[in-house]
């Protein structure tokens, strides 16, 4: 569906875009080891960028200049990394102790399949078999100490320090997508499309960041390096829009599937620039693009680091809503991704300096 007449190059999600998302989702990039996703990103954006660098922390920093002098310098950021696990101790016989990387909880882990290391060696997260324990064991919440990663005797292919990612193969069923790490390969895929279809009245400063899931570390240095006039962060945020079991109404849904991109007002790291929030909302209204306001509260995006860099950087965040993030498989709606692409594209095409000329 084309909603805008004036923008001829609105990125549409078709076969190619879905294929790209699939590649990105199936790639493993647990925080600090983002090389596999970075390789795909570099391959995709190089032909469309004026300048591409990989910085000291591993961020991909690319510039696509608009036409003209003294254009607004707009930073767009999406983190490449995903939550996962790291092997910490070799217990012999292909069995490893491990720690979590980013927000992973132990109760999500027992019996899940994982891919270990750069070669995606298949493994499984083992738990002491409950039928061998006493009944007290069955009531105890599972902790990391009760769990091991078992890759079998694959001598030399797996070692302490390797990361492990959930072994989930991306799939599509009509308008529904399922995959691991859709937080934030959706943002990465969106940003790649934006690089390919960038508006000409701004300079686009693009950061595919590392180490977001462990404290927005890559974004911090990326924003310092770019020193942009403003920033928009593309991410994916949880949808807790399930029916509740104990009360009548779910009042803490964060976001809902099928309601369009989630615009942030406040999260634990950022009070978003009201001028940019207004611009996004107005863009949605004017072009008939569905959007939702993410419930203010906890969580956060790379904006938490970006907006405080140097003399302060007006920032906005937009997320594709997704259920079950930080677990082996997320569920998202294709329509939410397309609407996100539409909203961000339209917002960028209609970005003018006067939006930020008044005081915050």
């Amino acid at each position, binding site marked *: 569906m084309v909603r805008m007449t004036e923008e001829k190059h609105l990125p549409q999600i078709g076969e190619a875009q879905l294929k790209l998302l699939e590649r990105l989702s199936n790639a493993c990039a647990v925080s600090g080891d983002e090389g596999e996703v970075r390789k795909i990103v570099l391959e995709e954006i190089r032909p469309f960028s004026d300048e591409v660098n990989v910085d000291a922390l591993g961020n991909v920093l690319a510039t696509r200049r608009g036409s003209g002098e003294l254009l607004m310098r707009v930073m767009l950021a999406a983190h490449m990394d995903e939550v996962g696990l790291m092997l910490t101790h070799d217990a012999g016989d292909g069995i490893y102790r491990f720690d979590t990387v980013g927000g992973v909880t132990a109760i999500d882990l027992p019996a899940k399949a994982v891919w270990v290391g750069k070669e995606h060696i298949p493994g499984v997260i083992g738990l002491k078999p409950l039928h061998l324990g006493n009944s007290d064991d069955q009531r105890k919440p599972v902790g990391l100490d009760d769990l091991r990663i078992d890759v079998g005797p694959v001598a030399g292919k797996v070692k302490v320090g390797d990361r492990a990612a959930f072994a989930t193969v991306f799939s599509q069923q009509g308008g529904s997508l399922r995959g691991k790490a859709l937080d934030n390969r959706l943002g990465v895929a969106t940003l790649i499309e934006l690089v390919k279809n960038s508006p000409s009245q701004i300079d686009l400063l693009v950061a595919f960041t590392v180490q977001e899931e462990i404290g927005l570390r890559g974004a911090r240095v990326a924003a310092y390096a770019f020193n942009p006039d403003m920033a928009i962060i593309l991410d994916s945020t949880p949808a807790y829009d399930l029916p509740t079991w104990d009360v009548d109404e779910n009042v803490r849904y964060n976001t809902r599937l099928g309601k369009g991109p989630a615009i942030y007002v406040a999260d634990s790291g950022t009070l978003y620039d*009201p001028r940019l929030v207004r611009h996004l909302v107005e863009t949605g209204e004017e072009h008939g693009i569905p959007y939702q306001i993410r419930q203010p509260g906890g969580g956060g995006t790379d904006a938490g680091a970006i907006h405080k860099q140097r003399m302060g950087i007006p920032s906005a965040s937009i997320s594709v809503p997704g259920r079950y993030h930080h677990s082996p498989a997320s569920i998202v709606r294709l329509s939410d991704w397309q609407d996100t692409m539409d909203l961000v594209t339209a917002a960028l095409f209609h970005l003018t300096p006067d939006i930020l000329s008044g005081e915050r």
Partner: protein
Amino acid sequence: MKSLIQKLVEVPGPSGYEAQIRSVVRAEIEKHADELHVDALGNLIARKGKGGADGIKIMLAAHIDEIGVMVTQVDENGFVRFTTLGGVRPHNCVSGRVRFLNGVSGVIYMEPLDDATKVPTIEQLYIDIGLSDHTDAPVKVGDVAVFERPFLDLGNRLVAKSMDDRVGVAVLVETLRKVKNTPHQLYFVFSTQEEVGVRGATAAAYGIDPDLGLSVDVTGTGDTPRRTKVRMEVSLGKGPAIKVRDGGMLADRRVVDWMVRGAEKLGLPYQLEILEGGSTDARAMQLTRAGIPAGCLSIPARYIHSPSEMVDFNDVQQAVQLLVELVSHPVKL
């Protein structure tokens, strides 16, 4: 100065939404500053003095934001669920009143508790703005409100919401008005988003790149009834407090001594402050760029982050006297 404090505390300015309070402060200082500007995060920055041979660049900061609440959901029955902006505590909320920036008022109450002796969580609280259902609700997700409570003048003691840190703002405004000659470039920063993590001051300090930083903010006291023997060594009415440390900063020893010398020169009472938790904009200044000497002049306050924060008017006036003295002469650390 009491009327200035009253004027400042009566304006809403929750963290991130400081436009109204900023314009009120700007009107108070416009005539007295050599230069004014507002930065990307909304900090109001006023320069006074060009600096001379004996001068340095000094950043003085008091935050204009206050704690508040933000709507997360208007439920089917029209009750407004909310999250907090800054250190709002549930026990200070129940039966309190709030006012949204669009003028809508409401009262906070709580779901019935399983155990009435327990304090509710923020998730168990809601704002009742007088609706029967959620259609045509005058507030929406993301709207912000501040606590409402009239200013109370008890003579020497003043009580209001947002005394943290409008009393500091008042001290800076008065100081700016009273400083006649300074060898320094003085940057008065009326900072934003302090209550959510000294965010405004972080950006302002980077931009100003000062040689010395001082924040003016409230600090707790140990002079109220309690059952433990552990008391904080700060009281209302015993003079402004010179911060030695807090939860986020060890004040520069040289800055502490400089402030002590200033107080003793004027014969002003002062107290040394050691605060266990919390921090101020001075932390952001101390850690900016390659680091600078930083300290904090504190106004002792009771009941901080409640809708009835109490300060002593003498402490406030003495803080102004001390600050004017400090910034009017060359600084030797």
